[in-house]
């Protein structure tokens, strides 16, 4: 305990010295987030300085081992760091699918060679990944995927199409589910890693209802994927044909991330802030709206406690392995409701699609974006199926 308190004051001092004031402002839009990668540019010097300071300290991936670019923090220390960053409103120095999804999978299934190479690049923000899971005919029923890799001995030749590939057009590499055995549905999928600059890879952006276009259709036309990138560094994670295990493990992390269980601001009560917001707009809360906000805050504050409990239990292995599905379900449904409430308080002002007052229609665009929360990473219905089957043990589920 005394050690943790020492770590807290150390961290506080370090943040004070290293986190620039500009990086303590709330993230306003996409351009405030640094995703890293070969083609990344910094929005300003502060963003660059903040990333570099964190990379040097291992704080882009604080709980990863030091050998792979992390700080090797214990869960308790990582929690202190999160709390201290939260306290000053520090932005994450680096956001990436490498950190949230691929990294944990590599830590669990990767070879030493893969860890050395990819984890360090991810931790330093030098590589940007995208996730090639979904296909036009394979969304919730992911295991039905058809993208095929023909075994050519030293390499595969991959053909097929992915869809909803977030940021595929900005990504350097893809972690991709490819069928390598047509005879076995579950044990015929390989989890491959390859360069998006490979010949035969093309992407086409998809425009969303929010007006943004973070997704792509991704096409593979005779893409050559070598089986190895060198000594102890295969191009596939886990075993050939056993990629489904890796895929599921990674989905668990994706769901946790989307659930907001890590204590992101989306899980706090909003009533008080909404009253202030209404006052700024020269209005007050209707009694019925106030009542709805209060009921929402009850649910939101209760969910915050659940998030805390979930993380505490995960640390000591007490959580049910399917619990992330429940967190994802409850957290995303709550976040959608949160944005419905914010739109209601914002009134007509929240309808502005392009205006300075709304920083480019932020309320309405965010509101629309949250509708994806209960779809991406597995839909709410699929989460409920998993709870029924794995937690409640209902028949035939």
């Amino acid at each position, binding site marked *: 305990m005394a050690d943790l308190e020492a770590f807290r004051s150390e961290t506080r001092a370090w943040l004070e010295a290293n986190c620039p004031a500009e990086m303590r402002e709330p993230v306003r839009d996409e351009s405030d987030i640094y995703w890293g990668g070969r083609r990344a540019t910094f929005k300003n010097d502060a963003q660059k300085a903040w990333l570099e300071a964190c990379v040097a300290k291992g704080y882009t991936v604080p709980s990863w081992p030091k050998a792979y670019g992390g700080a090797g923090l214990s869960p308790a220390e990582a929690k202190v760091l999160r709390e201290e960053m939260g306290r000053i409103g520090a932005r994450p120095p680096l956001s990436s699918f490498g950190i949230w999804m691929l990294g944990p999978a590599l830590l669990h299934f990767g070879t030493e060679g893969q860890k050395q190479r990819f984890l360090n690049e991810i931790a330093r923000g030098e590589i940007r990944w995208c996730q090639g899971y979904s296909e036009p005919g394979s969304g919730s029923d992911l295991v039905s995927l058809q993208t095929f890799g023909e075994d050519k001995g030293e390499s595969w030749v991959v053909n097929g199409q992915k869809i909803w590939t977030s940021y595929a057009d900005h990504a350097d590499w893809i972690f991709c589910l490819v069928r390598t055995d047509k005879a076995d549905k579950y044990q015929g999928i390989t989890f491959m890693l390859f360069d998006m600059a490979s010949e035969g890879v093309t992407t086409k952006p998809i425009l969303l209802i929010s007006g943004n276009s973070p997704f792509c259709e991704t096409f593979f036309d005779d893409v050559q994927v070598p089986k190895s990138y060198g000594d102890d560094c295969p191009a596939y994670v886990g075993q050939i044909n056993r990629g489904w295990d890796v895929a599921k493990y990674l989905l668990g992390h994706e769901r946790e991330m989307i659930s907001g269980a890590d204590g992101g601001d989306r899980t706090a*009560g909003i*009533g*008080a802030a*909404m*009253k202030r917001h209404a006052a700024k707009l020269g209005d007050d*809360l209707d009694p019925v709206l*106030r*009542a709805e*906000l*209060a*009921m929402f*805050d*009850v*649910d939101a*504050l*209760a*969910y915050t*406690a*659940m998030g*805390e*409990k*979930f993380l*505490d*239990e995960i*640390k*000591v292995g*007490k959580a049910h392995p399917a619990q992330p599905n*429940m967190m994802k*379900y*409850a957290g995303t449904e709550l976040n959608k409701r949160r944005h419905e409430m914010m739109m209601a308080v914002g009134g007509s002002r929240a309808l502005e699609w392009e205006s300075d007052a709304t920083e480019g229609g932020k309320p309405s665009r965010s509101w629309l974006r949250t509708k994806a929360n209960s779809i991406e990473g597995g839909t709410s*219905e699929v*989460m*409920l*199926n998993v*709870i*029924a089957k794995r*937690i*409640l*043990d*209902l*028949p*035939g*589920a």
Partner: protein
Amino acid sequence: MPLYHNEDQAMLADTARGFIAEEGNIARQLRHWRDRNCKDGFGHGLWKQMAEMGFTGMLVDEADGGLGMGHVEAGIVLEEIGRNLTPSPFLTSSVLAATALKHGSDDLKGRYLPGLIAGDSVFAVAIDETAKHRPSRIATRAEKSGNGFKLSGSKSFVIQGASSDMIVVAARTSGGDEDADGITLFAVPKDASGMSHEVVRLVDSSMATHTRFDAVELDGDAVIGEIDGGRAVLDAMLLAGRVGAAAEGVGVARGAMDMTVDYLKQRKQFGKLIGEFQALQHRASHLYSEVEIARAVTIKAQQLLDAGAPSAELMASVAKAKVAKTARLAVQEGVQMHGGIGMTDEYDIGLYMKRDRALAEFLGDAHFHANRVATLSGY
């Protein structure tokens, strides 16, 4: 503090679960006493057994002969009471009245606590004066008279009022009905003359009273805490009671949910187990999520209260409201998914619905507490 039970607490939970499932189950207690039209609505034998288990005095300080445990521990017992719908004076006596008595004089403690700890005494609390929980409004008056007071007014829905050896009464010693100050708490003994009870059986088979105080003469040493300064004690008592009621509600919700999920695995229609129908699976999964969340915030509230954190107030109301909403969902889905049999008296699921209705109302329903959440949050 991590939001799960430590080793000692987990052990207590095991013990409490086994004991209450065995001795406090529905057939043995709730149905047994109800079917005999018992005037108390609960069994004194079980209360005595709970004393032998050390439960009755768990919130009483060690110096006063209790176990000096916290609200996490009391919550463990309450959750099992809720799960088994065990009629028991635990919440009113061991949580509410015991919390009030913490603020009492040594004399008062000496008079009442040994009986509580031994399971010989039962206490009630008399706060509300109307059909809804409105502790901000107290009209019952206590006027100075000689060395003591004369208590006049009435209290409604005093749970186990007629069965109690002592009732903690919140009365006004000065000011107007809606004033925060001017409240005094009294420990009113069973045999105080001028006190009359109209006994009513409630939907959940518990017994309540509308109690009238007709110039009831009380000694000065019946005062718990300070004269005119009782609001703080009242608030502390309510806080403990709300967190306790939330824990019991979690038990009710879990009990109803477990029964229902079991039923889904047994009942066949259309040639299938009804648990195979996705329409029911999804609702069951949603219910499970809500129950987990309600339980998490209840543990949070218990821990904050034990730590003496100022935020316990807010979290207690969050917990009480969340649990009320969740237990309601659990019993409604429970009866519905049981189909016609859920409407029968023979099946237990309906008993959960009745208990939920009464428990949710006790010390403020979901609306009352959501309103408090808004007020405490500044809107």
